[in-house]
């Protein structure tokens, strides 16, 4: 019941008119930017971060919760109408969503995705409310060794286990870890890899890295390889009304997808890509109309979209309770916390209870705003999609450079941004995932701090990570994750 009281207090914070306004602005902007083709949730959050520079932390974080949800929803609109999934979590939606749009059923596809996102988002937020205090209680027992081992686990799942190639995922992670080392060492004050450039002493800002990789890199890539292609957009059918049949087929899919998506979000398993595909496969298997799959089955949109949102909410559990981001977007959100000198984790629930619970309460409210806003405004979001590519990317880069420049008012950050843009281009061209680099940048320094703290406590005895039972368990699971797939492949071959 303690959590319930805290949540009520949180609603008191989130329902203040000014915070409600920030939530509303966040959802609107998040949807607007998220709809833009080629702009995923991570880039949306990174580009809109400078907007909150002068807000108080509570207002800023509430706005961010809105942006996060809005960006997710905006992305699915683009996926359904354009068949260009902005991120891997939308690929499953594109399979059926775009087919529905081609068959003139874009309206119901967008409706089931919006309502499904609402249902899944709300249930997942309830689960988050119930689960967070439990994880906090557990996390309070963690020492530096446990944290470090948990971070190693997160590193390995997001880079080595997911994606098309273990080695390329790890390469991305280590690039991020390297970038995270730049700047002043938090333990000793020693400058590392700054080469005497004052702008680098602060370290590499997560906004500059994310915007460089996602916006500048993407613009360079699309211009160089896709700018002379023509794209077709599916027309919006007149009505977004779902038939009784649509409802009957969507409901179970939403609920099943929530059950799949939320747990995947909470364990550090790289966000929502896997649950959306599991949900798609489940719906295909259970459907009474399997013949419709591949031609526009509504369950194939309802499921993955709901799974995506449930997982996106689940990701907030490790982010808020442990301070561990498990997706690129969550890493940028963590960066936003750090800008205010806040470190998410069990202690934040005690020291900044109002802020944390205000944020959680605003997730409930954000979901409602999203539903109210999106169904009637779908027509406007569809118009946004028709912005020609040349103007679209030109506008994106104006915002991208603004974010980098406003950090220190220095052209050095713009040069860094361009260098990350070149890196992003190369990573896109040779299929090196960018998410692990962003997570490595943010989580690397935290992991190093915990590592060195653990060793200080044990007087330099490195076996501490193996002799503490919780820490040893995390490391054992990590090793199993790497070794097991390899053994399975070996066994299958023979």
């Amino acid at each position, binding site marked *: 019941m303690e959590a319930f009281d805290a949540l009520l207090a949180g609603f008191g914070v989130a329902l203040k008119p000014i915070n409600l306004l920030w939530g509303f602005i966040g959802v609107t902007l998040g949807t607007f930017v998220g709809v833009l083709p080629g702009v995923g949730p991570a880039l949306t959050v990174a580009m809109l971060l400078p907007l909150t520079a002068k807000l108080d932390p509570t207002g800023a974080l509430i706005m961010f919760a809105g942006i996060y949800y809005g960006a997710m929803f905006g992305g699915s609109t683009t996926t359904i109408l354009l068949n260009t999934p902005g991120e891997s979590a939308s690929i499953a939606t594109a399979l059926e969503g775009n087919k529905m749009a081609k068959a003139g059923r874009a309206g119901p596809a967008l409706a089931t995705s919006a309502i499904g996102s609402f249902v899944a988002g709300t249930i997942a937020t309830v689960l988050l409310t119930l689960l967070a205090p439990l994880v906090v209680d557990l996390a309070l027992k963690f020492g530096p060794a446990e944290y470090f081992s948990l971070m190693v686990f997160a590193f390995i799942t997001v880079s080595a286990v997911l994606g098309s190639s273990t080695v390329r995922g790890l390469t991305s992670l280590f690039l991020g870890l390297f970038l995270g080392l730049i700047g002043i060492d938090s333990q000793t004050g020693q400058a590392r890899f700054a080469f005497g450039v004052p702008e680098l002493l602060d370290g590499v800002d997560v906004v500059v890295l994310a915007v460089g990789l996602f916006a500048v890199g993407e613009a360079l890539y699309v211009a160089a390889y896709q700018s002379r292609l023509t794209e077709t957009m599916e027309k919006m059918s007149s009505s977004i009304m779902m038939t009784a049949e649509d409802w009957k087929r969507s409901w179970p899919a939403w609920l099943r997808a929530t059950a799949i998506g939320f747990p995947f979000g909470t364990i550090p398993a790289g966000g929502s890509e896997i649950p959306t595909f599991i949900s798609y496969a489940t719906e295909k298997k259970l459907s009474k109309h399997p013949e419709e799959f591949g031609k526009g089955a509504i369950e194939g949109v309802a499921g993955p979209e709901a799974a995506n949102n449930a997982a996106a909410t689940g990701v907030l559990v490790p982010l808020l309770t442990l301070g561990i981001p498990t997706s690129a977007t969550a890493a940028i959100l963590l960066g936003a916390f750090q800008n205010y000198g806040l470190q998410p984790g069990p202690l934040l629930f005690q020291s900044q209870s109002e802020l944390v619970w205000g944020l959680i309460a605003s997730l409930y409210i954000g979901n409602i705003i999203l539903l109210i806003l999106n169904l009637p405004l779908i027509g406007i979001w569809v118009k946004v999609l028709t912005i020609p590519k040349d103007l679209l*990317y030109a506008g994106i880069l104006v915002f991208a450079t*603004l974010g980098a420049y406003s950090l220190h008012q220095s052209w050095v950050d713009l040069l860094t941004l361009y260098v990350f843009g070149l890196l992003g281009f190369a990573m896109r061209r040779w299929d090196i995932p960018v998410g692990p680099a962003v997570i490595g940048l943010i989580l690397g320094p935290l992991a190093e701090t915990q590592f060195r703290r653990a060793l200080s406590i044990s007087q330099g005895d490195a076996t501490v990570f193996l002799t503490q039972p919780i820490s040893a368990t995390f490391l054992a699971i990590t090793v199993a994750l790497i070794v097991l797939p390899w053994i399975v492949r070996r066994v299958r071959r023979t």
Partner: protein
Amino acid sequence: MLPSEGGYAGIGPNFVPGVVAAGLLLLGGWLTYEAFSGGWRNAPADDPRERGEHPFHASSFGWISAGLFAHMVLIGTGGFVLAGTALFGCVARGFGSTRIVRDAVFGLVLSLAVFLFFVKLLNVGLPAGWLAPLLGVAGI
């Protein structure tokens, strides 16, 4: 060289950089090995046409880079609005636009709107640059 004194932990600020460097070297070796033994695994096709794209368009790449460098140089002198306009025009050009006047107008309007929004509403300082007298006359 980074100092290595470690206090109680026994490791100093140079330890983790060493681990990361070793990791990068190892991964570099692994990627090189893959490249020489049948190419990177599960990688996209080398030929852009097989990926459903057109061949590398160097001038597009060049225009966008030029736009970002022009922006870098201009922002400290010409100010945010002019730098943004130049960037906008170059990027649009890189994406194949030939309507220079339209792009310049769009870029100017967008940059000015963003400038006013940040400076007036959000109180975030951005350089006015060469347009400072003009913006001043307009009461901005």
